[in-house]
């Protein structure tokens, strides 16, 4: 079932019966109670959502903490496939996308997301350990909105995130 449809259905159910327990909703939609809870939390959260995509857990953790401290809602993905799935189900306001990943790399993920009308408007900042010019050009050509070289300056990254979010008017 399409994640968007699930969201829509949860909203419809709650509109009809605001008192329905999570377990009942989970039963109706044939998903777990946890997922329902998570979905509802997300739906009720008004913070700006950032998806961080990196295969290195050690890179994800401190970045997530730093961004959460800035009062962003942060979700994570550790592979290209997971990144696409989470983008489609959660519609983040911004994606921080690592370039070098096993399986589907950052360029491919960027292509897939930008080609999809539902996700094409989500800004993407590419992160990579490679500081090569060629990568920069390809990154921008595939529709990445910005490009940050690892190891990045945390303050600068935050400023760029803020700037892009303001520009897209979320």
């Amino acid at each position, binding site marked *: 079932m399409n994640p968007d449809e699930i969201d829509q259905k949860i909203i419809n159910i709650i509109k009809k019966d605001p008192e329905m327990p999570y377990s009942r909703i989970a039963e109706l939609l044939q998903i777990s109670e946890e997922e329902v809870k998570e979905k509802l939390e997300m739906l009720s959260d008004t913070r700006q959502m950032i998806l961080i995509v990196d*295969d*290195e857990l*050690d*890179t994800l*953790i*401190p*970045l997530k*903490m*730093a961004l959460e*401290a800035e009062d962003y809602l942060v979700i994570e993905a550790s592979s290209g496939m997971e990144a696409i799935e989470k983008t489609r189900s959660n519609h983040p306001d911004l994606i921080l996308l690592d370039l*070098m*990943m*096993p*399986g589907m*790399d950052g360029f491919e993920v960027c292509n897939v997301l930008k080609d999809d009308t539902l996700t094409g408007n989500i800004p993407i900042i590419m992160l990579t*350990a*490679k500081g090569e010019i060629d990568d920069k050009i390809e990154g921008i050509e595939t529709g990445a909105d910005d490009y940050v070289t*690892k*190891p*990045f*300056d*945390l*303050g600068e990254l935050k400023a760029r995130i803020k700037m892009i979010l303001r520009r897209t008017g979320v």
Partner: protein
Amino acid sequence: MVSKLIFKDHKYNLLTILAICIFAIALIIFLGSRSNEEVQNIVQEQFNEQQLLLARQSTDGIEEFLNQKTTIIEILANEISDKPPDEVVTSFVNVYNETTDIHVIEFVNESGIVTLGYPEKNSPLGYDIYENNQEGAFERARDNKETYISSPIFLLEGGMGVFIWTPVYRADEFKGVVLVIIRISDISERFLKSCESPHEIYMIDRRGTILYDSSNRYLWGRNYLEKLGDESPYLQQILHHQMNGSEGTGYYLEMNGSEKKLIAYSPIHWRNQLWSVAVTSPVSEVDTMINSVFVKQGVFIGVSGIFLLLSSFSIILLLTRWNKSLELEVASKTSEITKSNELLKRANKKLMELDKLKSDFVSMVSHELKTPLTPMKTSAEFLLQDDPDPETRREMLELIVRNIDRQTRMVNDMLDISRIESGNMRFRKELLDIVEIINSAIETMRKQSEEKKININTDIPPGLTKINADKDKLIQVFVNLLSNALKFTPNGGNVEIKAFESGKYIEVYVKDDGIGIPPDKINKIFNKFYQIDNTYARPYSGSGLGLAITKSIMEGHGGTIRVESTLGEGSVFILAFLK
């Protein structure tokens, strides 16, 4: 350039050269036949000339002989005009003895009676010519006062003879005639016999009477023309020429018409007599001569033709062979060049592969070296800027330390591999118990194994022979292998280490039930810089140097390492240490 053109088509060239050969031979034959005609004419002329000369030689001899005799007789006649009969006989004897081939010398007195003669046996003394009606010649000599020669007639004593009548005058008084008879056979014996073979010779007088015939076909003394009758018009013509006193040559056909003959004839002028000698020879003789010339020419043409053919064929053969050997040489050179090109290509490909490996390695290394920096930097900056709660702070610091360790390992691997590459890896060898080594490696990896809940089982018999090795390096070998095994084995899996003695080796098996190694990659995993596949191996990222380092350490100890693996079931690394 030329040889290229010539040898484009062997068949065509062969035909061309053959044609040239045949043309040359035809030319030789044509020129030969042209010159043959000339040769034939020349030979014919020469032959005719030669025959004529032969005839002339005979006639000259006879003419001189007869004239000489006549002169002697005339001198004799003059001498004896006033001599008494006995002195005359003495003169006769002298002349007879001094000259040759005189049959008889007689003296016929003024009334026509033979009165003297020498030799006496040939002299019909008292013979009266008037009585025998032979006075014609006698009277002619007497009346003309000069020598008269009567035509040859048969002698009483056999054979033919010629009578020479020389008158004897004292002043104007006729005394008689000196009659000398010369036998024709003596003349022919002296002058004609010698040049008979292989020719035939005949002699006729003005009337056509046959005086001599070497073929003996016709009776001597018979008239040749009468004998011929209507036959051989050519011969008759020739006979007429002869009887006219001409000299020359001519042809006629034998009476049976089978053979063509050449006659060369020459006259003998002797006072009032005219004789003619003819040398007859078959024309076939000329043909034989010409034929022998032809045969020689033919042999020459044949030999030169064969020589031409053989030499041109041998030239063709030689050139063809030469060409073939050239082709072979070119082919072998070409294949050599192709081979060396192939080698160069392969070497180039290998170099390019190596280059790619190296640049892959460089980008890998730079990525691996940069990767720990990102979390360290992010964490440190976060700690600086946001002053988080103690738990988060602790988590951040641990993260920083972990990444420092990771980078340290990376740098150590890099140093190891650079030592291996430059051949500077040193071993401090000592006698070691392999169990201790394995146990300390397991101890090192305990944390990782516990995290993934992987059991490490050992099966090592007690009392294994000690080995001579570098302790730290050997621990590194097992740590590397265990680290790989743990990395590629899913949570809750098993890793097993077995050791046993096998001949002069101690073998150690490190077995995991991890993801295994694809068969097409199994030969490359010990290569420096090699990681199975960037995308494939990344969940288990490492420097790609661990196994290369491990292999180098094993080889530095005189040992070996190999791997057996089934994709999806696990791998076994088999180490063999020299005891």
